[in-house]
């Protein structure tokens, strides 16, 4: 017997839950306080937006909504690491990433408010819209990366699945393709411990979810997904590697879904409250704020001012969303094909004729 291959998964954390550096030799981002402050502001904006979106749903002003509560470091870490020409293939709660890409809060509300126009967003035209069927977006990321590779463009595709999504064939097939063709993709796994009501331990027998990348031949790491310094360090490393033509990577980010799965879910039915209370101590904003305060670049006054600014921006977004016109009946026909087929044109005419009667 001899060992013909051996593997390991490394875990990275740079800021602990109190915002204290865990090692002496921190990544460069830890001393780039301007950038860290900016990231903190974006994460706070996402948090305040999210809270408002849930309130809008509870008061009947928004449809079912998937909260991003607790995932801010992952999402903002992803989005802020990308260039405009890169491609984002999100799942359905990555508002932090989408906002970094230029998608407006009002557009996110328009989407969950039941209007396709929300996906005709202000972010890059080559970015994918929110993807509801789990893990299917991973294929789109690998396919985009295939196009970049064939055209010899230094662009990178970034996609994300949850712990549940990592069980799906689409995720594994996308990883396999990325490994086989050495594609410029970054696969992020947001391991938030819960796939609706199914806990992580029932999702997979694998010790880590990152190790699924090893089977595809991809460098794979696990990071503290509540530590934006760790998320960004892993993202920057993976994106650089992909852009240099060295292939794909997998980053498993450990976090916790502090919210219900969506506003249609009630997580209290299936998970213990003490687990959630413990998870709140680890959430990503507390530690980043503490770190920035320790570094002397953040104060309570600034915090109050930031929260006011963010709330005001959210109010503007809500106003814009509420003023978005209801789509005309013809909208459901007019974007089905480049050229409306004759049979569909007949159905369109009929719909217009009978719309009010």
């Amino acid at each position, binding site marked *: 017997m001899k060992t013909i291959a051996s593997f390991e998964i490394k875990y990275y954390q740079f800021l602990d839950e109190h915002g204290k550096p865990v090692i002496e030799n921190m990544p460069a981002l830890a001393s780039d306080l301007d950038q860290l402050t900016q990231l903190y502001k974006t994460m706070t904006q996402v948090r305040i937006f999210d809270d408002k979106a849930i309130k809008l749903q509870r008061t009947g002003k928004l449809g079912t909504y998937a909260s991003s509560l607790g995932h801010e470091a992952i999402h903002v870490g992803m989005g802020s690491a990308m260039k405009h020409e890169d491609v984002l293939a999100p799942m359905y709660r990555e508002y932090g990433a989408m906002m970094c890409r230029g998608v407006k809060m009002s557009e996110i509300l328009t989407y969950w408010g039941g209007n*396709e126009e929300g996906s005709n967003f202000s972010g890059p035209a*080559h970015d994918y819209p929110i993807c509801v069927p789990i893990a299917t977006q991973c*294929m789109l*990321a690998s*396919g*985009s990366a295939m*196009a970049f590779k064939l055209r010899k463009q230094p662009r990178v595709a970034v996609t994300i699945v949850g712990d549940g999504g990592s069980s799906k*064939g*689409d995720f594994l097939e996308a990883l396999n393709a990325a490994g086989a063709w050495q594609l410029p993709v970054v696969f992020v796994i947001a391991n938030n411990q819960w796939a609706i009501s199914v806990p992580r331990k029932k999702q997979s027998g694998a010790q880590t979810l990152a190790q699924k990348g090893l089977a595809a031949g991809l460098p794979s790491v696990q990071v503290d997904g509540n530590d934006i310094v760790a998320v960004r360090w892993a993202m920057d490393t993976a994106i650089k590697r992909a852009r240099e033509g060295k292939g794909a990577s997998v980053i498993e980010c450990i976090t916790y879904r502090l919210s219900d799965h969506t506003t249609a879910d009630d997580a209290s039915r299936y998970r213990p409250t003490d687990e959630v209370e413990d998870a709140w101590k680890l959430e990503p904003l507390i530690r980043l704020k503490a770190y920035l305060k320790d570094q002397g670049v953040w104060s309570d006054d600034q915090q109050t001012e930031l929260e006011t600014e963010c709330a005001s921006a959210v109010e503007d977004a809500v106003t814009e969303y509420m003023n978005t016109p209801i789509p005309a009946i013809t909208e459901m026909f007019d974007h089905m094909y480049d050229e409306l087929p004759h049979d569909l044109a007949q159905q369109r005419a009929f719909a217009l004729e009978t719309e009010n009667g």
Partner: protein
Amino acid sequence: MAEITLVEAVSMALAHEIAHDPDVVILGEDVGINGGVFRATAGLQQRFGDDRVIDTPLAEAMIAGIAIGMATQGMKPVAEAQFMGFIYPMIDQIICHAARLRNRTRGRMSVPMVLRAPYGGGIHAPEHHSESTEALFAHMPGVRVVIPSSPSRAYGLLLAAIRNPDPVIFLEPKRIYRLYKEEVTDDGEDLPLDMCFVLRDGGDVTLVTWGAMTKETLEAADALTEQGISAEVIDVATIKPLDMDTILESVKKTGRCVIIHEAARTCGVGAEIAAQLAEKGLYDLHAPVQRVTGYDTIMPLYKIEKKYMPSTARILKAVNDVMEMS
């Protein structure tokens, strides 16, 4: 000008588009050095390189997904499902993404891809290789479904499918891949993707079919001529969108219609054609519309596959029934 088979016409169209459009790439299992299990891509990788004709890992959903990803970023992939029996894992990607990305982004994104698959029975193939499930795709809003039935139509329709800015499911009737040859000029001329082809003019009955069943249908039309019955034969060719105008016009003339397809009967594309005839052409009909189809059974293995598939005799019986009823 050369006489070529249907599968050679597929190959000719693929080569033409790769040569003329740098965005066109072929991908699928064994499409490269092997030239595809039916030789549809024979010699293309050698001629155009392995970055234009790409062998994929064996994962059908991935082939569809990769093609959609490439298409949304501006390329024009032509993906191959090796057999229709292996196309089903691709349906998730086709229905969730290919068919709807244009609509759900209000036209910001589009998916100019083609998914080719050989389909249908009659070649003594193993299990899962012989079904005709075109109706699954015809039911999906957002795609087009095209089925050629001759070398020249395969060439022109495939060119059009590749050039079309929306996803096209291009199903190739493998039983007639090499049945006969036809002169096809490699002139880059495409055919419309929303029109039936009238293969034969006639005045007494309209025979509506597509794919490999055009063979038995044309044979039936020959036999009917000898009986003094003049049959008009229509090759639907574009299953979606359906060109009902041509079919209705023909039925207005003949007053009778028999629809022939190899696929299972219930909710087959024939049912849609019959429904639209009932809606729009009832008063032109002298007799009820008849369907000659596969049965609502699992396609049998090859010892009795011919008994499943509509035969010339079954078509003739249906036509004679219709003639007697009117």
